[in-house]
């Protein structure tokens, strides 16, 4: 499994050295050389899975055989095309998601990283995350990914209960999960994340907390807690519809979430986002970019991106979606160099709405400085300072608006979606009053 090209080898080696360094939190860190408009995160979508999970409605395919060489070539081509189009000079992070990207060969990962490093500046300490599913014999394969340039792992552990894992349609056991976690920690110390699900049908608070405690004894510095959402079209949804399984109880899920975030806080984790917890500064910079409305390129079937195609002379940010089906996507990439299916220019108001909805998911919320970058003509005080309804939320202690900016309180974060139903219309109203001559959203 040779990594092609000396330069990529060089980059992978530098990255390995970098992964041993503890990194400081990125927020409020020193200003980086390139302006924000010339920086981006890169998401790479691997669309294949071994087996369909009962809860998953993501864009994934269970192929009979993957033509990996063709897939690799297309991922590389599209990454090159989009990087050129975006005019991005520095890639801050790369995230291999899916699907099950740990089923791809490390060679493919290395090829994409090399292409990125060739096309733009990919610093040696850039965060390169791979989503990995637990397996029975994880060690050598994870090491190969490390050699390919991956320096962070996100393990889809989901549960430490074998019955629950079967319910979720996972192929691994709790034992596999813990073995994979241990192997990952050896290879990527301080840079391993685990996902744990909550709110499964028939799941109870006590046993679930037991799982979390067990995980806290074994885990590294990053944990994600996800509440199961029943998605139409999944096997689990059908089973609940048919009454074969009890519907998940939202009350219990709320209780688990609350107990879980408290347990994580006691264990020294910072809840830096609704579902994400880190200690020792091990935040995911890639995901942080999403919540801070930074630019990101999406490569691969169905991948989403948000960036200004400066390379094509534009200065309007676009929301982009790549073609969903891998075969069609590949054809398009081979024909046009990319498989972008949909491009939607984003208005200034629309950007502010995303800044609001995404920023409030984080613990720091939206700083005045951050807001100013997207809406220089309208301060947070202008928008929210005089609203009676917002005042009520502040008085209830769900929301904070002060010299630092706007953010959720500990109590407010779990009900953010309700808060946004007050904040979003308020933003729209303030926007229209302030800029009456402009078309709404324009």
């Amino acid at each position, binding site marked *: 499994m040779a990594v092609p090209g000396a330069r990529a080898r060089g980059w992978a080696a530098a990255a390995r050295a970098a992964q041993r360094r503890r990194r400081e939190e990125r927020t409020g860190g020193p200003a980086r050389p390139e302006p924000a408009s010339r920086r981006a995160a890169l*998401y790479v979508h691997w669309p294949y899975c071994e087996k369909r999970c009962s809860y998953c409605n993501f*864009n994934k395919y269970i192929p009979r055989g993957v033509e990996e060489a063709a897939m690799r070539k297309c991922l590389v081509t599209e990454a090159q095309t989009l990087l050129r189009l975006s005019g991005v000079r520095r890639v801050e992070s790369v995230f291999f*998601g899916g699907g099950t990207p740990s089923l791809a060969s490390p060679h493919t990962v290395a090829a994409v990283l090399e292409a990125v490093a060739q096309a733009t500046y990919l610093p040696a300490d850039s965060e390169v995350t791979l989503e990995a599913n637990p397996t029975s014999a994880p060690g050598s394969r994870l090491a190969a990914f490390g050699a390919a340039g991956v320096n962070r792992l996100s393990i889809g552990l989901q549960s430490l209960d074998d019955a629950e894992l079967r319910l979720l349609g996972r192929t691994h056991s709790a034992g596999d999960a813990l073995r994979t976690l241990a192997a990952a920690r050896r290879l990527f110390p301080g840079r391993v994340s685990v996902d744990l699900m909550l709110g499964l049908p028939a799941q109870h608070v006590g046993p679930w907390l037991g799982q979390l405690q067990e995980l806290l004894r074994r885990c590294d510095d990053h944990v994600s*807690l*996800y*509440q199961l*959402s029943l998605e139409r079209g999944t096997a689990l949804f059908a089973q609940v519809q048919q009454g074969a399984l009890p519907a998940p109880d*939202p*009350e219990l*899920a*709320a*209780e688990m*979430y*609350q107990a879980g975030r408290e347990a994580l806080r006691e264990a020294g984790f910072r809840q830096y986002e*609704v*579902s994400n917890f880190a200690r020792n500064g091990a935040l995911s910079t890639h*995901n942080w970019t*999403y*919540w801070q409305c930074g630019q*990101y390129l*999406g490569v691969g079937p*169905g*991948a*989403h*991106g*948000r960036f200004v195609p400066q390379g094509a002379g534009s200065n309007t940010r676009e*929301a982009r*979606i790549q073609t969903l089906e891998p075969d069609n996507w590949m054809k398009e990439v081979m024909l046009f160099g990319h498989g972008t299916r949909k491009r939607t220019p984003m208005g200034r108001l*629309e950007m502010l*709405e*995303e800044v609001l*909805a*995404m920023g409030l*998911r984080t613990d720091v919320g939206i700083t005045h400085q951050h807001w100013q970058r997207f809406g220089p003509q309208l301060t947070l005080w202008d928008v929210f300072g005089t609203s009676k309804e917002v005042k*009520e*939320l502040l008085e*209830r202690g*769900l929301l904070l608006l002060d010299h630092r900016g706007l953010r959720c309180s500990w109590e407010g*974060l*779990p*009900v*953010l*979606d*309700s*808060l*946004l*139903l007050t904040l*979003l*219309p308020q933003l729209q109203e303030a926007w229209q009053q302030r800029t009456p001559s402009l078309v709404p959203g324009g």
Partner: protein
Amino acid sequence: MWTVLGPGWGRGHALALWAARRRLPGPRPAPTREPAARRFSSADLKEKLDMSGFPVENTRNFSIIAHVDHGKSTLADRLLELTGTIDKTKNNKQVLDKLQVERERGITVKAQTASLFYNCEGKQYLLNLIDTPGHVDFSYEVSRSLSACQGVLLVVDANEGIQAQTVANFFLAFEAQLSVIPVINKVSIMRQPCYLLFSLPKSTFSISAKLGTNVESVLQAVIERIPPPKVHRKNPLRALVFDSTFDQYRGVIANVALFDGVVSKGDKIVSAHTQKTYEVNEVGILNPNEQSTQKLYAGQVGYLIAGMKDVTEAQIGDTLYLHKQPVEPLPGFKSAKPMVFAGMYPIDQSEYNNLKSAIEKLTLNDSSVTVHRDSSLALGAGWRLGFLGLLHMEVFNQRLEQEYNASVILTTPTVPYKAVLSSAKLIKEYREKEITIINPAQFPDKSKVTEYLEPVVLGTIITPDEYTGKIMMLCQARRAVQKNMMFIDENRVMLKYLFPLNEIVVDFYDSLKSLSSGYASFDYEDAGYQTAELVKMDVLLNGNIVEELVTVVHKDKAHLVGKSICERLKDSLPRQLFEIAIQAAIGNKIIARETVKPYRKNVLAKCYGGDITRKMKLLKRQAEGKKRLRKIGNIEVPKEAFIKVLKTQSDK
């Protein structure tokens, strides 16, 4: 085994019970009969008929009355076939029931009339069959139709026996002093020799209307046993309006029965009720479709078109007479009196105009529906409609849906309460001492009122004895007072109760049917007003009154009703960021309470790349929807919550 049924059944007629099969009529000499169609072929009918050839003594006016589904319309089909009025085909199913809802539900909503020509023993008879609406909601219409008749066929299903409606209909006919010919139908599918029926002096006919068995003998009996109308052709015109319909092109078509005189095209006629004068454009008979004639003569039944533009100009029960020849109006005229009110709103306000036009079209044919514009903060602009009764309301709603494709929100029906005012100021304001309260918002305070009144009805329930106990409990729970109870045969009981009308408008009939496994039948008639301890009940959300949920209830029921409203609201109010207290209150006294707990978690767990677009769309849609929510204090109440509380509950 003759059993006298009680004082109400007497009046010289022997009423008794016996086994139906004992009185199957023996063979009769077959009457000679020429097919009527030969004398009045359809070609002839295209010419204007001369009706002068039917003297009064050869005319019979009769009606068929029966409980729902006992075979009235099927018998009418056979009579129409036998007399050659319609061709005998397999397709004749409820020919006179023209509306989709009538055919579907097996009920007659709109009276239909057919003139049958029948030759019997060398004489040409004119038999006018006046089909009546088949439900007591329409008892006034039935009584007017019956007043044009001299006899009725009382049809009873051999398997089901007498039902509550049979009794009600019987009394209507009985009070009108009509000859009653009892007909036992469906003998062909009689499952067992069942014990039936009160007897009238003369024999009973056992028929199968479906197969036509023995139907001809019924026709004979109509001629033999029903007297001709007592009328005079020489007197000035006196015509009873017993029905009216609206035709887009020709205006109002009034169905009339002539008690005296003659009417023809060109006559100037006057409505006794409105005192308006009209010129007759067309007269004719119903065959069963309209067939114009030169004239209509005393004793005959037909239609008349006279430039009336609105069905309210031809109200049922009104008398028509010739201009400058006034006559004593026929007795018994009443304006339609709504007994049940309900709000009607379009599901979407953009449908308002369509619904408005549909309601206008339907009420063109049904002047008994009263329409007042109304609006609700929650449901938008709509109407408050008054109906004769529950079935009338259901039928109206169903016709809107079927014939005009309109979907509507119908609020829980209410009844017209009254208040006798004591406050001089209020009396001056209303210009009367006794006011009718249709909208709960107008409910006057107790301090300004001598007493409140509620409408009551006399209900008749006929049930197998085994359910009597449960039914009596149900009636008691509905504040009903028992008036009478008697066995009508070996195992069936007839109960009479005085019910407050509002106790039966919502779900009484369904409860009765379900606790008697469908066997009990129910019917009711208007019984005026009674004093009632009524109170106004408010519904509060975190202390703020919800105007659209103000309800007038009987004091004894306030707790129950309040509890049910609170529970329904609890089930339909979405959680909010804070706790919501739902309370029902009378004045300052809280009588029921429910709590909606606040949200604990409602933030989407995952939010990365592709989720962002989806989430933003969802949030914006929700925020957009939130703008349309009605705010009570700081609580957002979706329209669905109001609908759930206000809507007629059919599933309860």
